[in-house]
């Protein structure tokens, strides 16, 4: 099976500055791939390029077999921005009903995604009355509508309580097992443990593309944080040469 995302020599210019410097990688289907790295490293710009909302992109960016930004991809990708892009003056249910109509999802999909993000009790509440964590779950719920094949989630677990965070990661893996491809960004290196495969991005460069185990073995470190430091401080390691593997069942 071909990769869900195939990127070759991706470059992005913002203003006069090049912020992504020729990234090349694949993202396997039906797996959870973590996009890790410090803030300001280009994770969001990379995700925007994949979704097709970033201007001044060069290189080859194929998503689900189509060039990124193709109109037919719009209902096949669920995208959650870091600041939840939902209407704060509407209730949770009104938001979901609207986005469901836009993507053409069936009506009962609203209840399904409400259950997934555990917000049933808040369905009738206005979003501006919710906490930051609850709001980001509303954003996540909108992306799950219509069961998209690819989910691009920008820092979806920031500010969530540990129990909910664990439950969401479990949910991500459940979706992956059902064939959904997930690309999840985080600046918290601990979350690497939750991903099938990792992409480490720093200063617009891809510094690692490996599994957690492979990364630790290649760098001789005990955790991803240390591995990241090792790679950054001893660049001769470069990008581990292991190719993308098929995810386990």
């Amino acid at each position, binding site marked *: 099976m071909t990769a869900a995302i195939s990127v070759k020599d991706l470059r992005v210019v913002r203003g006069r500055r090049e912020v992504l410097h020729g990234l090349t990688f694949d993202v396997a289907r039906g797996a959870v791939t973590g996009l890790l790295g410090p803030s300001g490293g280009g994770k969001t710009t990379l995700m925007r390029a994949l979704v097709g*909302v970033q201007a001044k992109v060069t290189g080859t960016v194929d998503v689900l077999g189509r060039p990124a930004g193709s109109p037919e991809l719009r209902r096949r990708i669920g995208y959650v921005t870091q600041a939840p892009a939902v209407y704060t003056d509407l209730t949770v249910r009104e938001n979901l009903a609207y*986005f469901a109509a836009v993507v053409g999802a069936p009506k009962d999909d609203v209840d399904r995604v409400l259950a997934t993000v555990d917000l049933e009790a808040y369905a009738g509440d206005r979003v501006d009355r919710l906490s930051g964590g609850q709001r980001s779950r509303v954003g996540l719920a909108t992306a799950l509508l219509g069961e998209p094949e690819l989910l691009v989630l920008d820092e979806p677990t920031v500010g969530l309580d540990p129990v909910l965070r664990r439950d969401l990661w479990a949910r991500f893996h459940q979706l992956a097992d059902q064939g959904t491809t997930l690309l999840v960004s985080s600046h918290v290196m601990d979350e690497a443990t939750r991903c099938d495969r990792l992409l480490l991005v720093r200063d617009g460069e891809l510094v690692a593309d490996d599994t957690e185990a492979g990364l630790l073995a290649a760098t001789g470190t005990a955790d991803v944080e240390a591995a990241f430091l090792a790679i950054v401080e001893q660049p001769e390691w470069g990008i581990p040469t292991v190719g993308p593997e098929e995810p386990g069942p």
Partner: protein
Amino acid sequence: MTPRILAATTKRVLLQLRHDRRTIALLLVAPTAIMALLAWMFSSTPGVFDHWGALLLGIFPLIIMFLVTSVATLRERSGGTLERLLALPEGKLDFLLGYGIAFGLAATVQATVVGAVAFGLLGLDVEGPALAVVLVAVLVAVLGSSMGLLLSAFASTEFQAVQFMPALMIPQLMVCGLFGDRSTLPRALELLSNVLPLSYAVDAMHLLQSGATLNGAFWRDVAVVAAFIVGILTLGAATLRRRTP
């Protein structure tokens, strides 16, 4: 454009408006109160209220709808929801017409309420049919909405969006024929007023005040305003970008 998405967008904008009770009150109460004040001010000077009341009824929605729409769409641009929608199957026309229709409906309610009070309670008298006055008011409201949609692209804060009101609307209000015949303006200003949409709305209102029949000149003015709306919305569509820096 997809009818399902257009309908959903219209409904969503109306729902947002419904949640904002204070804005609804302002949309209905403010123009009614100003109309009553006008009637009271000129209660001992016959004819003045009939003249200014009708113009106020027709022109007031321009300002309110301009402000409401420019702030609402600016929020969509800066809050990320517009970008999110354009990454989904939402078409640019779904977005623009959704706003246009939703605020057009709000303006219809507004013009009907203010018109009912003005004609029914305050004794406003216009030669032409009252319904035609309401029609012009709704058209002017949609014109204001479309201008707000377009200009929100050039403001980066709500503060700036509100500043467009005096900067762009007041000069237009000055030369549109509210304060005397446009043909008496200096030639340059007359030419300027010829290319501004509000002039045609005011011309239509003047026709309603002077003649009782809805003649070709009235419908021509209405058509010109409608054409401006289409043109401004088309320009607005050009400012909606799927890919942004």
